[in-house]
């Protein structure tokens, strides 16, 4: 006698497809991701991408299920910034796709390689206002490097191959693949293209041309040798190109002080006496003085953005020679007229330069720079016993050590992290520079930890930023991703509040996160202490998501808490109740020059 039982589902693991094997579009996509070397992807399923998900959990690709598609996109971004490989996102159509938009725009602004695959309604329904339909190709056009709508199942493998090529070469960026459901279901023979040939996209042509005999490289070398007061201005492009060694070699050989942009932090070690740290609106005084006084600037993978230049007419008034190395020709002479443009990969360009330049002594300039550094340091002394964010960040920097990866949200804490983390290595600093995306920190830290499980990953966030993608705490707990989060809670949207204090007569319009419906619309007594209790309880929320968490309210507890977080396995959150109205100094107000630099409240 036999007993009938419901058969258990049989879904065998996916074997790598053979050339010419007839498969569905969905399986071809997953097989193509495997062929492209994808080991991890982030995302969220839904109706229009179910066919693809049907193969995903049987593939060797590790998949991290986020709690919101924006979170998944920032995770992929964090993964990409640490590894240099393309971060992969797989989501459904309509709202799934539109939720990735902020993440795609963030990656686009900071040249981060992503491949974002969005489900789409069947081709027969595209344009019909179908359920969960959005014009993803139209929406992502201005915020991606390139995008595709696959209309024919025979194009799937080629499109995936091209997408990874486009995302990771030249100036990297996000590529979107919109993938209709009927194309996922259609069948064809699998052919993985051996090479990519896109006639409108030949970044290798730029890269090959650079050699020491290149006329612009020769001109640049002469200008560098001739310069009396040169400055190296290094951006995220140098990190992406892996050009840190060359930057460091050039700086040391020719005794050139180095300042970095926000995304360039880590491209040059800040413990080197030649380091000026970050320049610009919240840059160090000495970096901005050096740029103000320089006679030659060597920009490497930086784009003279408005947060760096301030008022263009007053930027680098003494500079006689602008050398600009960038892989993106459209970044050259966009904001600043360039004298010696070198279009190409920063690593190759600097290597060519290094063959031409000879060791140079510039003692007068070096002494001047050292004097600025000595007399105008970043201030961290407070005559009180409160928890100041700067103190917390310095303690994290010291305790977590040089091997850590630091991730931030956007705002005051981000600027303090620029200042008080000692940036020593490339690809160890993740921050939304161009778009300035609040909510970036936690998910990007998760992506970073997935990419580098053996390194400590610290997310420094504010109470505003952490609340923007808090749901991803669950993702970290369930996937055992041991990120450490420090929330610097000043109960304000601090950077906007700082501007309100400085430029809007301390009218804290909707920047107080303790504000409730019973408050007067215009607060008459900000920070008086009479406010309502703060919500939410961030520590309790972290614990509810399966995290270990602690609130730190006294200065004496800072170091112990950080130590505890370092030693505790799994994800940990520390909430620091910090001084409410600390400001980021120095500051050059938007659209002003270095002469208008503010160094503290007393000088206003």
């Amino acid at each position, binding site marked *: 006698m036999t007993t009938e039982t419901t058969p258990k589902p049989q879904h065998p693991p996916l074997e790598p497809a053979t050339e010419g094997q007839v498969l569905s579009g969905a399986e071809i996509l997953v097989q193509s991701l495997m062929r492209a070397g994808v080991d991890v992807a982030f995302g969220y399923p839904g109706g229009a991408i179910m066919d693809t998900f049907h193969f995903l959990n049987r593939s060797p690709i590790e998949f991290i299920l986020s709690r919101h598609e924006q979170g998944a996109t920032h995770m992929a971004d964090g993964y990409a910034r640490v590894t240099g490989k393309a971060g992969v996102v797989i989501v459904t159509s309509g709202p799934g796709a539109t939720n990735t938009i902020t993440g795609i725009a963030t990656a686009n602004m900071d040249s981060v390689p992503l491949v974002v695959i969005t489900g789409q309604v069947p081709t027969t329904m595209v344009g019909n206002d179908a359920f969960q339909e959005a014009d993803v*190709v*139209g929406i992502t*056009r*201005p915020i991606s*490097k*390139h995008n595709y*709508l696959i209309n024919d199942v025979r194009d799937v493998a080629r499109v995936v191959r091209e997408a990874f090529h*486009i995302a990771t070469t030249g100036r990297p960026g996000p590529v979107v693949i919109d993938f209709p459901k009927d194309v996922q279901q259609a069948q064809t023979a699998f052919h993985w293209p051996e090479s990519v040939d*896109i*006639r*409108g*996209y030949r970044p290798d042509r730029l890269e090959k041309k650079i050699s020491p005999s290149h006329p612009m490289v020769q001109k640049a070398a002469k200008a560098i040798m001739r310069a009396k007061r040169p400055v190296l201005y290094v951006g995220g492009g140098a990190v992406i190109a892996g050009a840190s060694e060359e930057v460091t070699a050039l700086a040391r050989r020719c005794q050139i002080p180095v300042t970095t942009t926000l995304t360039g932090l880590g491209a040059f070690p800040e413990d080197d006496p030649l380091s000026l740290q970050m320049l610009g609106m919240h840059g160090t005084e000495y970096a901005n003085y050096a740029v103000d006084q320089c006679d030659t600037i060597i920009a490497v993978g930086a784009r003279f953005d408005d947060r760096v230049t301030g008022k263009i007419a007053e930027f680098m008034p003494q500079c006689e020679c602008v050398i600009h190395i960038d892989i*993106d*020709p*459209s970044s*050259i*002479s*966009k904001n600043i007229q360039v004298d010696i443009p070198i279009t190409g990969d920063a690593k190759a360009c600097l290597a060519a330069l290094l063959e031409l330049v000879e060791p140079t002594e510039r003692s007068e300039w070096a002494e001047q720079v050292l004097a600025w550094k000595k007399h105008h340091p970043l201030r961290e002394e407070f005559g009180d016993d409160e928890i100041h964010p700067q103190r917390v960040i310095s303690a994290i920097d010291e305790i977590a050590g040089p091997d850590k990866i630091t991730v931030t949200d956007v705002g005051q804490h981000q600027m303090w992290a620029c200042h008080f983390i000692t940036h020593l290595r490339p690809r160890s600093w993740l921050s939304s520079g161009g778009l300035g995306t609040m909510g970036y920190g936690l998910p990007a830290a998760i992506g970073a930890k997935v990419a580098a499980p053996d390194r400590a990953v610290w997310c420094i966030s504010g109470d505003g930023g952490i609340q923007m993608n808090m749901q991803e705490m669950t993702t970290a707990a369930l996937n055992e991703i041991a990120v450490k989060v420090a929330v610097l809670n000043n109960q304000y949207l601090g950077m906007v509040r700082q501007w309100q204090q400085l430029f809007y007569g301390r009218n804290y319009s909707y920047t107080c996160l303790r504000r409730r419906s019973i408050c007067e619309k215009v607060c008459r007594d900000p920070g008086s202490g009479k406010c309502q209790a703060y919500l939410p309880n961030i520590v309790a929320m972290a614990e509810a998501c399966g995290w270990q968490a602690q609130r730190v309210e006294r200065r004496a507890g800072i170091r112990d808490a950080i130590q505890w977080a370092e030693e505790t396995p799994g994800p940990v959150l520390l909430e620091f109740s910090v001084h409410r109205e600390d400001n980021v100094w120095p500051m050059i107000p938007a659209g002003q020059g270095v002469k208008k630099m503010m160094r503290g409240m007393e000088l206003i």
Partner: protein
Amino acid sequence: MRHVISAQVENRFGVLAHIAGLFAARGYNIESLAVGPTHDPSISRMTIVVTGSDRVLEQVNKQLNKLIDVIRVQDLTAEEHVERELVLLRVKSNPKTRGEIAQIAELFDARIVDVRPGAITLMIADTQDRITALTEMVRPYGIHELVRSGSLALART
């Protein structure tokens, strides 16, 4: 300054939208844009006329080149090139003026492509100056409607 840009692009859906979006997002006004496939059906050629400073145009060229579907961009302004535009215009006419209008058309090498009671339709394919001159000549008779193709241009070498 007026610039004539000639771009070879992939003949695919979405490319025109991409290029139009690029101009719109940066506030560059397109004076005219003409597009059609070339002798190679996989490639379209766009002739774009824009006005702006040389710096703005340098950016336009670089931004166009950045698009994956753009194969080649030339600013023809600095090069020797031929440029023509096609115009159709329907002019008010009666038996008395018809002959005069035909005579003007002949002077400008314009063709009469349609005649009906009360109106005569002319076609001219020429340079902008000559088109303007013809338009001015027939304006007193009364122009019902006018349509221009936008400039088409080719480098001489």
